[in-house]
């Protein structure tokens, strides 16, 4: 598979949120607005890229028996780095995202890609995989954030859409997250089913 295909698969065909159903905890929690979704998408993309590249580079050095602890240490290190960088240079995002940034450590997309892809493929393919998965995750967050902010606060990026209209507050509360994600997953499944049947040979994450 060429690396352009690696990049593309994460965005649609193997979208981490809608198809692989990974990393749903941060997805449900931070998508109350487009702004928050953007912050989380950026932080996750950074960690995913760094961990994929480093784990791919070290794949011949790390013995199989202790690969998971090594992956966790590497991922946790990059998460701590982005936490410090956010606090230093983006204090507002740091405040908004709060505890969700440290929780990137246990985001299963990152460990999943490390185990299923980066530890078995070369650096460039892993970079493309990380970029594609990161963009796919980010796009899903932004899409959910857009829908929830629009319906739940009647705003997009903080700007009012329909003045005078009362928003459905439930959409920015936890039930709104489940509703939105459920409908979007359904749409993805419908589309996939019509386009082609899922092939069983592909690796899971």
């Amino acid at each position: 598979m060429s690396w352009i295909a690696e990049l593309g698969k994460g965005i649609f065909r193997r979208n981490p949120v809608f198809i692989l159903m990974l990393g749903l905890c941060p997805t449900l929690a931070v998508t109350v607005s487009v702004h928050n979704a953007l912050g989380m998408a950026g932080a996750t993309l950074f960690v995913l890229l760094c961990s994929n590249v480093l784990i791919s580079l070290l794949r011949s050095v790390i013995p199989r028996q202790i690969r998971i602890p090594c992956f966790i240490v590497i991922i946790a290190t990059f998460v701590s780095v982005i936490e410090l960088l956010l606090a230093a240079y983006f204090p507002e995002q740091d405040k908004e995202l709060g505890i969700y940034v440290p929780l990137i450590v246990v985001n299963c997309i990152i460990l999943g890609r490390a185990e299923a892809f980066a530890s078995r493929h070369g650096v460039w393919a892993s970079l493309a995989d990380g970029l594609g998965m990161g963009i796919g995750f980010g796009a899903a967050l932004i899409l959910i954030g857009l829908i929830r902010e629009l319906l739940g606060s009647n705003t997009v990026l903080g700007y009012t859409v329909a003045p005078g209209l009362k928003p459905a507050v439930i959409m920015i509360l936890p039930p709104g997250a489940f509703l939105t994600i459920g409908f979007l997953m359904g749409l993805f499944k419908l589309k996939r089913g019509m386009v082609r049947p899922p092939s069983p040979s592909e690796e899971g994450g």
Partner: protein
Amino acid sequence: MNRSGILSLGAILMSVCLVSSGLLFFVHWATKGRIKEQEAENRESSLRIVLPQAVSFSPLTAGELIDYYVGYDRAGRVAGYAVSGSSPGYSSTIVVMAGVDVGGVLTGIKILEQKETPGLGDEAVRVHSNLTLWDVLLGRSAGKSPPRRPPFQVQFVGKTLAQLAVVKKPDPQKIQAITGATITSRAVTVAVRQSLDKLLRQGTCSVGEGPE
């Protein structure tokens, strides 16, 4: 697995940990100064919001371990005091900073920390732009200036300790609760009251008793 195998695995894991702590040490060292600066900037801007009449501030530590700030006006006279307090809200502890002038009238409050329900409780810190998305997209934003401070917090300006009561109907002499978030509204008000109480107990100003 034999003993040397286990030892070599341990050594590899240890070196991974050592390298990662080295990296963290470096990043921490590189960002330390900037994070400190951000905190100081944050405190400074909060003080300017709660004590708009003051131009310089100095921190004071009073007898019973409370920190408060004295604000001075251009002529170097005491213009007011700022102190922070906290109270449990609906889903988080709300920390506020409140500023009073020497007569004990509130000059501003700022919520420093909160994690209240998005869309309900966190209206206390939301500033709603009066621009619509269409204004921005079509470039009609010129001439409309968005409000700077959350309307809920603006209510506290000019109130005295005795007026710090939460009501549900609009009342210029009281604090009007946020729709659907009475607990948060009360918690903010209690936190402000507590910080004023602290000042009062210090005897630094005669809170709520009119000008000196």
